């Protein structure tokens, strides 16, 4: 399990990447995150819904009521063009972050080997 502190800044990115594949709802998204990461990252319910709230407020996603199935009416989420743009920016940011952090992580390994 990954500490939620480390991954916090990228929860939104993870959700957006799944919505780019197609509209989806809460449970499906959290299940996909689990299966893609082989259960190494499980997003908590409250983390998921605070991300939805934040993304919707910023206009990156839109919600709508889905068809009723088995008496349940789910809320679906759709990514907006702004959301796609934001996702690309976050991907670039991550590439940069990765490069920067890797420098330090590698130096640590190097140092430790001496």
């Amino acid at each position, binding site marked *: 399990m990954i500490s939620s502190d480390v991954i916090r800044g990228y929860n939104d990115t993870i959700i957006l990447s799944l919505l780019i594949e197609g509209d989806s709802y809460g*449970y499906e998204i959290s*299940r996909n995150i689990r299966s893609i990461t082989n259960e190494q990252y*499980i997003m*908590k*319910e*409250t*983390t998921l*819904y*605070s991300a939805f*709230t934040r993304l919707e407020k910023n206009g990156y996603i839109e919600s709508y009521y889905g068809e009723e199935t088995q008496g349940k009416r789910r809320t679906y989420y759709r990514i907006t063009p702004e959301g796609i743009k934001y996702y690309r920016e976050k991907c670039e940011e991550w590439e940069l972050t990765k490069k920067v952090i890797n420098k330090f992580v590698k130096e640590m390994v190097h140092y430790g080997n001496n």
Partner: protein
Amino acid sequence: METIKSYLDNIFRNLPKSKEMERLKSEILYNMEERYNELKDNGKLENEAIGIVISEFGNIDELLDEMGISPSKNNENYPVVDNEEAMEFVSLKKKASYLIATGVGLILLGVSLLIFLSQMAERNLIFQSLPEDAKGTLPVIALFLLIVPAVALFIYSGTKLERFKFIEEGKFEISSDLRNILNSELPSITQKQSIHTIIGVSLCIFSVVVLLAIVSFEPFADFGVCVMLLMIAVAVSIFITSGSVPDSYKELLKIDDYKPKTQKQDKVIGAVAGIVWPIAVCIFLFCGFVFNLWHICWVVFPITGILFGGFTALYKAIKAD
């Protein structure tokens, strides 16, 4: 599954109620249910599955921060009263009310006996061979012999309820499930209570009629009060016992007299009662022993009762504004 539902109910209970919140809650409930079913399908035991689902819920504050909602602050981690405990509380309150009703009945019976014996002694029908002083004090002894078990009953019923002190003080929470049960049963229970109240009030009115009827027969005039007191004793017992169940329901639901605000009022009224009633007892004993007015000094109790009732009503009316 019920565990998950009541877990969510507990979390959302103290949050502001809105359509948005309802939607969020049901959405999260769907997710948790589906996750639960998935875990069960993968061969997890029920308890394990519930544990995992709840551990994956997260921290509600994270979500509330994002939504710009601050949780209401009244929840100081009070213990949650479950259905079994609530039913135990109700039945214990019922038992205690029988004890208290018996105690009050004994005291009224004692006063009635006091008047009866005094009258008999005055007419030289009993205690003829005893000295004058003993004639005066024997009826009082009879009264105290009945007051002793009555007080014992009051104390005993109080200690029985000691375990549920936190409920009496309003320091508890109940599940929405229990709230629904209590709310659905309350109307039929209060209906029963109102029938008993009608019977009790009728008895009180009828006791006055009986008093007037007996008084008109000159030789028995003084015994009318004895009969009236006995009838009032029965009526008061009915009031006390019939009120116990609906009162305990209201206490659990924190409605009517048990709203946190009213409880503060009750503290003032309770404090006044704590002063007024002992004074009444002092006057009663003083008039009795010093002036030997046993036959009439009991009126201090009904007078205190009426004045105190008036004060309570007035206090509530002023505070209600």
